[in-house]
C-alpha cells in the first residue's frame, strides 16, 4: 500500500508506544483476558475453585430457568430505563435552572453535588432509614394528621425498585447536573443572541438548538450513567438486600452470590457472561457512531 512498511509504522514514535503500554496491557490482559477467562469457565462446572471440566450450556440452561435471574434482569431493565431518563432529564433541568443567572449558584450546586461524594453503601443506608414506614417519611406525614397516608416503597414488591431509584437519583443527579451545566456554559453566547433576535422562545432554544449542540456532553453522560447502572450492587445490598422476597434483585448480586456464597463459580460466570454480552450489544452501536460514522482528521 502507499503507507510506510509495518516495521516503520511499529517503530515510529517509540515513546508514544511505550507510553501506551499500560493502557494496552490493561485492555488486553485485564479486560479482554478477564472476559475470555470468564466466558471459558462459564462453560465448566467449577464450584469454589476454577477447573476445566466442560459441561456445555448446562450453566446457561439453569441460569435462564432461574426465577431470581429473570427477576434480576427485569429489575435492571426497569431501573436502567428510569434511572437513565430521569438522571439525564433532572440533571439537565437543574442545570438549566442554575444557568438562569441566579444568586447563590455555588450553594445550590454544592447542595446538589455533595451526595456524589458519599458511597452507595451510605446512600442505601440513609434512604433505607428515611423510607422506613415505622419512623421515616410515612410516620412523619401520619403524625401531621394524614392517618391513612401510605408511603412504603421498600416493603412493597411492586414499587421497591422506585425506592431504590429515589436513592440512586439522589446520589447521581448532582454530578450529571454539573456536566450539563458545564455543557451549557460551553454554548456560544452568539447563539443565544441570534435566537433572541429571531424571537425564538427560551425553551425552544434549549430544546432544539442547545441540546443538539451538546451531543458530546450527552454521550459522555450516557457512558458514565449507564456504566453505573449495570454495576448496580452496593446500593441494593445496603438498602433492601434484594428484598422484599426477591423483588429488588439485580444481576450483579446474582453473580456475586453464586460465585462466593453458593460457591458455584460456573453459574456465577455464566451470569457474568450474560451481563458482558448485554454491554456489548449496547456498546457496539456506540462505537460505530463514535468511530465508524465519521473519520477523524
Amino acid at each position, binding site marked *: 500500500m502507499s503507507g510506510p512498511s509495518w516495521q516503520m*509504522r511499529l517503530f515510529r*514514535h517509540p*515513546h*508514544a508506544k511505550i*507510553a*501506551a503500554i*499500560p*493502557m494496552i496491557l490493561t485492555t488486553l490482559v*485485564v*479486560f479482554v*483476558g*478477564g472476559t475470555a*477467562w*470468564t466466558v471459558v469457565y462459564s462453560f465448566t462446572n467449577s464450584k469454589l475453585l476454577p477447573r476445566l471440566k466442560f459441561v456445555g450450556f448446562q450453566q446457561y440452561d439453569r441460569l435462564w430457568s432461574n426465577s431470581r435471574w429473570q427477576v434480576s434482569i427485569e429489575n435492571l431493565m426497569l431501573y436502567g430505563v428510569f434511572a437513565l431518563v430521569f438522571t439525564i432529564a433532572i440533571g439537565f433541568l*437543574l442545570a438549566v435552572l442554575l*444557568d*438562569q*443567572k*441566579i444568586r447563590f*449558584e455555588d450553594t445550590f450546586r454544592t*447542595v*446538589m453535588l*455533595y*451526595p456524589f*461524594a*458519599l*458511597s452507595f*453503601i*451510605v446512600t442505601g*443506608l*440513609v434512604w433505607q*432509614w*428515611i423510607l422506613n414506614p415505622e*419512623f421515616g417519611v410515612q*410516620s*412523619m406525614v401520619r403524625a401531621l394528621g394524614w392517618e391513612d397516608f401510605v408511603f412504603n416503597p421498600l416493603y412493597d414488591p411492586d414499587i421497591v425498585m422506585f425506592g431504590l431509584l429515589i436513592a440512586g437519583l439522589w446520589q447521581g443527579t*448532582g454530578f450529571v447536573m454539573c*456536566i450539563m451545566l*458545564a455543557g451549557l*456554559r*460551553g*454554548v456560544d453566547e452568539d447563539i*443565544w443572541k441570534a435566537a*433572541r433576535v429571531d424571537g425564538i422562545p427560551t425553551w425552544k432554544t434549549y430544546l432544539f438548538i442547545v441540546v443538539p449542540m*451538546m451531543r*458530546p*456532553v450527552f454521550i*459522555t453522560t450516557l*457512558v458514565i450513567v*449507564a*456504566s453505573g447502572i449495570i454495576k448496580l*450492587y452496593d446500593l441494593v445490598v445496603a438498602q433492601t438486600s434484594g428484598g422484599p422476597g426477591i423483588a429488588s434483585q439485580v444481576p*450483579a448480586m446474582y*453473580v456475586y452470590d453464586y460465585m462466593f456464597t453458593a460457591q458455584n*463459580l460456573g453459574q456465577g460466570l455464566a451470569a457474568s457472561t450474560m*451481563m*458482558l454480552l448485554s*454491554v456489548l450489544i449496547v*456498546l457496539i452501536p*456506540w462505537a460505530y457512531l463514535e468511530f465508524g460514522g465519521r473519520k477523524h482528521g
Partner: protein
Amino acid sequence: MANVQSLQGPRGTKPRRRFSGRNIMIYGTLLFVSLYYILPLWVMVMTSLKGMPEIRLGNVFGPPVDITFQPWVKAWAEACTGLNCDGLSRGFWNSVQILVPSVILSIAVASVNGYALVNWRFKGSEVFFTILIFGSFIPYQVMLYPIVIILREMGIYGTLWGLVLVHTIFGMPILTLLFRNYFSSIPEELFKAARVDGAGFWGIYFRIMLPMSLPIFVVAVILQVTGIWNDFLFGVVYTKPDLYPMTVQLNNIVNSVQGVKEYNVNMAATILTGLVPLIVYFVSGKLFVRGIAAGAVKG
C-alpha cells in the same frame, strides 16, 4: 480551549425584576429540590447527635433533645472491629496510604493515555479505547477472581502495590475518556507547532499539555479521591488486615449483624468516613464544574 475561557458567566436570559413570577418559580423549584438533597444529611447529622433511647422513640427528622457527642467519640476511637477497639481511627492512615499513590498513579497513566489517544494515534488505538470503555461497564464483582489470579502471578497479591494497581486499572476507563475529551479540545495547531520545533512525545506532554490541563486534573483528582476513599471491596479483598482502609471499619460498625444496631454511631461513622471526599467537594466545587466543562464538552 474556547469553552474553558468562556465559563465565567452564566448564560440564559437576564433576570428583569427580583420578584418576577419567573424568579419565584426558579427559586421555589430550586429550594424544593434542595430539600430532597439536604434531607438525608440532616437525618444523618441529627441522628448522630442523639442517644439511643431518643432514637427508639421514632421521628428521624426531629432535632435531638439532648445533644450528645458520644456517638462521634465512639465511632472514631472506641467502636470495635473484632478485638481492636479503636474505631475508625485505625483505618484512617491506611486509607491515606492507599489513596495517595493510587490517585497519583491512576491519573498519571490515564492522562498519558488520553494524550496518546488524541495526539499520537496509532493503528488500533481506537480499538483499545473502545475496549477500555467496555471495561468501564464490567461490574467489579465479575473481575474479582481474574484479578486475584493476575496479582498472584505477578507476586504482588496482598501488598499495597497490588491494590494501587487495581485502582489504576479500574480508574482507567472513565479517566481516559475525560482526558481524551479534554486534550482533543486543545487546538491541534499548538501541537503541530511544537512538533515543528522538534519537541518529542514527553516534551510536548510536560511543556504544553500539562500546564494547560489544570481543570481536568482537578476533576480527575476529585473523582479518584471519592472512588478510592469509598472503596471497600478491593481494599478488603486485595490487602491484609494491617492495610485495611477505613471503609472496612465502617462496614464492621454498620454491618454488625448480631447485637443491637447503634444507629447514632453508624451515622457518626458514616459522616466521619465521608468527610475527606465531602471536604474535597465543598472546597473545590467551582473548579470541578470548570474542569468537567473541559473534559466532557468536546467528544
